[in-house]
C-alpha cells in the first residue's frame, strides 16, 4: 500500500520536469520540421506555402553547404585531436608527485571558466592582432613578418582558441580516470621490469580508453554547435563558416526560415548520430 502511495507521489513529483522538457523538445522541433517544408520569408511575403523537400535539396546544393560541412569537420576534428593528445599528456603530468599540485591544477583548469565571448575577443585582439597582438611582437622579435591570424590562418586560429577553452575539460576528465587506476597494477608491472613507455601503452592507455571516448563524444556535441567564438572573431568570413553559423545566417540574417530550418533538421540529425553513441555508454553505466 505504501509503495503504491509513494509510486503515485513519485509520478506527480516527476511530472513538471517531464512535461517541461517534453514541451521544450516537441514544440520547437515540430515548428522547425514544419517550416522546413515551407517557403517562409518573414520579411518578404511571410509564409508562401508548402514546397515539399525543396528546401532540403536547396540547402545541400547551395555552394555554401559542402564548405561549411568541411569547415565544421576540420574544426571539430582539429580541436578533438589537440585536446585529447595534450589532455592525456597533461593528465599524466598532473598525476605525478610535485609541489603546489593544487595551484597548477587551478591554472590549467581556469580557461574552461572563461566565457566564450571573452576568450574569443582576448585571443583575437591581444594575441592575434597583426599590429598590436603579442604574437606579432613575438614574430617581429624573431625577425619574422607578423601574420594576420584570423584572415590568413583563420581555421587554425579558431581551432587554437577553441582548443584552449576545451583542453581543461579533457585534462580534468582524463586526470580523474588516471587517478582511479589501480596503483598496485602499475607497481607490479614496474617490478616486472616494464619500461615507462610499455606501462603507458599496455596499462594506462587501455584504462583511459573509455574516458577518452566520453571526452570525444561530449566535446563533439558541444563543438558541433560552437557559435560565439566565430560570431565575435570572423563572423563566418575567411572560410570559417561552420554548419551552425551557416544556419544562423540563413535564419536570422537573410531571414530565409524555410531554408534555415531544413539546415537545422540536418544539424539535429548529425548531432543525434553522435548522441546515440554517447547514450549507449551512459546507459551501460547506469546498469552497473
Amino acid at each position, binding site marked *: 500500500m505504501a509503495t503504491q502511495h509513494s509510486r503515485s507521489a513519485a509520478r506527480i513529483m516527476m511530472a513538471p520536469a517531464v512535461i517541461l522538457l517534453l514541451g521544450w523538445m516537441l514544440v520547437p522541433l515540430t515548428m522547425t520540421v514544419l517550416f522546413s517544408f515551407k517557403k517562409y520569408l518573414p520579411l518578404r511575403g511571410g509564409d508562401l506555402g508548402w514546397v515539399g523537400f525543396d528546401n532540403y535539396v536547396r540547402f545541400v546544393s547551395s555552394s555554401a553547404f559542402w564548405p561549411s560541412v568541411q569547415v565544421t569537420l576540420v574544426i571539430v576534428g582539429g580541436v578533438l585531436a589537440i585536446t585529447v593528445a595534450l589532455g592525456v599528456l597533461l593528465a599524466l603530468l598532473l598525476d605525478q608527485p610535485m609541489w603546489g599540485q593544487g595551484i597548477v591544477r587551478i591554472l590549467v583548469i581556469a580557461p574552461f571558466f572563461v566565457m566564450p565571448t571573452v576568450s574569443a575577443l582576448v585571443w583575437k585582439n591581444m594575441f592575434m592582432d597583426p599590429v598590436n597582438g603579442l604574437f606579432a611582437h613575438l614574430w617581429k622579435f624573431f625577425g619574422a613578418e607578423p601574420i594576420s591570424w584570423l584572415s590568413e590562418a583563420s581555421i587554425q586560429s579558431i581551432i587554437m582558441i577553441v582548443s584552449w577553452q576545451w583542453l581543461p575539460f579533457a585534462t580534468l576528465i582524463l586526470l580523474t*580516470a588516471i587517478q582511479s587506476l589501480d596503483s598496485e597494477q602499475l607497481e607490479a608491472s614496474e617490478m616486472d621490469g616494464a619500461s615507462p613507455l610499455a606501462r603507458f601503452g599496455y596499462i594506462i592507455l587501455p584504462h583511459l580508453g573509455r574516458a577518452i571516448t566520453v571526452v570525444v563524444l561530449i566535446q563533439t556535441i558541444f563543438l558541433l554547435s560552437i557559435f560565439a567564438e566565430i560570431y565575435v572573431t570572423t563572423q563566418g568570413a575567411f572560410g570559417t563558416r561552420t554548419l551552425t553559423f551557416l544556419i544562423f545566417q540563413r535564419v536570422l540574417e537573410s531571414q530565409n526560415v524555410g531554408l534555415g530550418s531544413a539546415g537545422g533538421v540536418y544539424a539535429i540529425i548529425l548531432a543525434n548520430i553522435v548522441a546515440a553513441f554517447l547514450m549507449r555508454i551512459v546507459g551501460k553505466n547506469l546498469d552497473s
Partner: protein
Amino acid sequence: MARSVTQQRKAINTAVAWAVGLLIFFPILWTILTSFKTEAQAINDPPLFLFFDWTLENYAVVQERSDYMRFLWNSIIIAGGSTILGIIIAVPAAWSMAFVPSKRTKDILLWMLSTKMLPAVGVLYPIYLVFIRLGLLDTRIGLVVVLMLINLPIIIWMLYTYFKEIPGEILEAARMDGATLKEEILYVLTPMAVPGIASTLLLNIILAWNEAFWTLNLTAANAAPLTAFIASYSSPEGLFYAKLSAASTMAIAPILILGWFSQKQLVRGLTFGAVK
C-alpha cells in the same frame, strides 16, 4: 639514494608542470595585467609586463561609459534565476527517480539527457518566433526560462547521481519510525542532500553565466548579460585593449572563483556519471 632520486624527479615534475600551467593560464593573466595599464601602455611596443604605472582608471571608465552594472545585474539574475528555478523543478524529479525507481526510470533519464543534445541552432527560429509572440524577446524572464530548460537535464542528472549515493535504508528506518513523506524529505533527506544540491547549484550558475548562444541571439539592449556586453567590444570602434581587459576581468572574475570550488563537480556534472 632512492629518496634523492625521487626528490630530484619531483623537482623536475614541479618545474615542468608549473611552466605548462603558467603557459595555459597566461592569456588570463595577460588580460588581468592589461586591465591595469593605460591605453597607450596596453599597445606599447615592446609589450610591458609588470613595469608600468598601475592604474584603476579603466574599471571606472567601463562602468561610467557603458553602465557595466546593468549587464552584471542581468547576468546575475539570468544565471541565478535559471539555476534556482531549475533546482526547484529538478529536486522532486531526481528524488523520485533515485528512491522510487521504476522500470522506465533509466529510459526517462536517458531521454532527458537527449534533449540536451538538440543543437540550439536547429530550433533558433521557432524559439525566436515564440519569444516575439509572447513578448519575451530581450527580457530577463525569457532568458531565465530558456537557460533553465537547457540546463535542466544536467541539473536532474547531477542531483540524481548525488541522491543515489544516499543509502535507502536510512529512509526506510525513518518510515518505520512513523515519519510521513513530508517529514522524511524535510528532516532526513534534505540535510543529506544539501552538499549535492550546493554543488549542482554552483556548476549550473557557471554554465548559465557563460552561455553564449541564446544570450546573444535573444537579447538586445535591455536584458543583455555580460556575454553580450563583451561581444559588443568586437566592433572596431570598441577596440580599446585596456578597457576590453578591464571589462573582461570583471566578467570572468566571479566565475573563476566559483569555478575553483567546483572542479570535482565539473567531471560529475558534465560526463553524466560515465567517468568516475
